């Protein structure tokens, strides 16, 4: 597929791939930068894709809202999505969400970048989920950087069956003896 005369398929695929992972609408100009193509070309491809999904009767659609493009579930599939969501399948937090929540619980108030450093992965989407589920909330900003700081909520305590944060079992009981875990260590290592 190195035929330079027909690069469109691969630009199209690149756009699809990026659209799959973005969690908020992305402007055409940003997408154009990412795939290194003129904005007009990208805009045309996005419209083509959207039309293709519509014509193909796909369960998802590509829409331009608030100046950006994002994948959405198709409206006439809503009943299924709702059932899936209500079914309790989503009531459990994913492993990634649980681990991130655990870091927030023990390190609060803490910024996203610090959590990301500790976990070694980007946590933006997971944090949005946790905030959305009412388990985590913004509790202030870091004076030096202005970064938003997060902490756990009373809903979190309630769900875990605790009356106060102090009731969380001490972390050191769960670390191997030789991990003298202090904050700086953790952050530095992350």
């Amino acid at each position, binding site marked *: 597929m190195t035929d330079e005369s027909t690069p469109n398929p691969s630009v199209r695929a690149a756009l699809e*791939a990026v659209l*799959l*992972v*973005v*969690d908020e609408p992305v402007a055409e100009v940003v997408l154009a930068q990412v795939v290194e193509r003129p904005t007009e070309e990208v805009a045309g491809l996005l419209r083509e894709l959207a039309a293709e999904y519509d014509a193909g009767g796909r369960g998802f659609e590509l829409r331009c809202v608030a100046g950006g493009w994002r994948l*959405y*579930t198709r409206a006439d599939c*809503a009943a299924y*999505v*709702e059932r899936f*969501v*209500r079914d*309790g399948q*989503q*009531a*459990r*937090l994913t492993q*990634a969400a*649980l*681990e*991130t929540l*655990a*870091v927030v*619980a*023990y*390190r609060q108030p803490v910024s996203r970048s610090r959590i990301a450093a*500790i*976990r070694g992965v980007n946590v933006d*989407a*997971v944090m*949005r*989920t946790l905030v*959305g*589920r*009412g*388990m985590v909330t913004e509790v202030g900003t870091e004076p030096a950087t202005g970064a938003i700081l997060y902490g756990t909520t009373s*809903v979190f305590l309630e*769900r*875990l*069956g*605790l009356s106060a944060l102090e*009731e*969380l*079992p*001490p*972390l050191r*009981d*769960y*670390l191997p003896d*030789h*991990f003298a*875990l202090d904050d700086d*260590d*953790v952050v*530095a*290592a*992350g």
Partner: protein
Amino acid sequence: MAGPLGYRRRVPPVEPAAPAAAGGDASADFTTDPSTETGGFHVHLDVFEGPFDLLLGLIAKKQLDVTLVALAQVTDEFIAHIRSHGDDWNLDQASSFLVIAATLLDLKVARLLPSAEVEDDEDLALLEARDLLFARLLQYRAYKQLAALFDRRLGEEAGRHPRVVPMEPAFAELLPDVLFTVTPEQFAALAARAMMPRPRPTVALDHLHAPKVSVREQAVLLAERLRSAGAATFRGLCADADATIVVVARFLALLDLYREGAVSFDQVTPLGELHVRWVAPDDFDLTDAVIDLTDPTEEGSPDD
């Protein structure tokens, strides 16, 4: 003795361009070391992870198939490798290499003496040891090849990103309450795991199946005895030691006490009875001294 040794692999999680690991390619490990800081033969060998790794490397280097014959042929080089390390071994590593070296020597001897017949149980045991070594090597090679497969797959998969996107607002409202299926204790364990720093080089002692003995505690014990008795023989001091490790710990404790100027030694003949005398000043504060005592069974390496 120099600190923890070279052999105990540089532990950083990121391996510089992990060499292709399939058995046949193991020579890559041997001939090219990516980070030759000090240069020389010695450093090259440090990339080997254990005796099996080395054996496979030697066999591959000679372009031999893995057979009993090949094993016999690389015996000399294997032993040369052990020699080349000189004192730079830790006990754990050295013992595993030596066991295999001994078996290899048997194997080589058996080949040099083709007429050798199996005569007694000892010979049979040798044969068994030899076959076992061969089997274990083949087994190790299988896992090494699978490790290469894992590496390839992990690399391929790293390019695929799963969709992780928060729910569209219309659906998010429908989400049932989060259901915690973990207890606070499990939650804490999860936090500990999530926050665990990258492992640092440590000398693990879990493989020592002997109970842990604290040199510190033994020092306190010996000091009490010597303070009241004035002098004693090492044999006498160890009369109640129920395990070799306790004897070793007491010996180390005595060395520490000697360093602190609390005891003196007297040995009339080499390997003869060791007499220990309490020479500490009256105001000698054991607790001060003891705090500084090295305690290899808890923190240091066993061969320090």
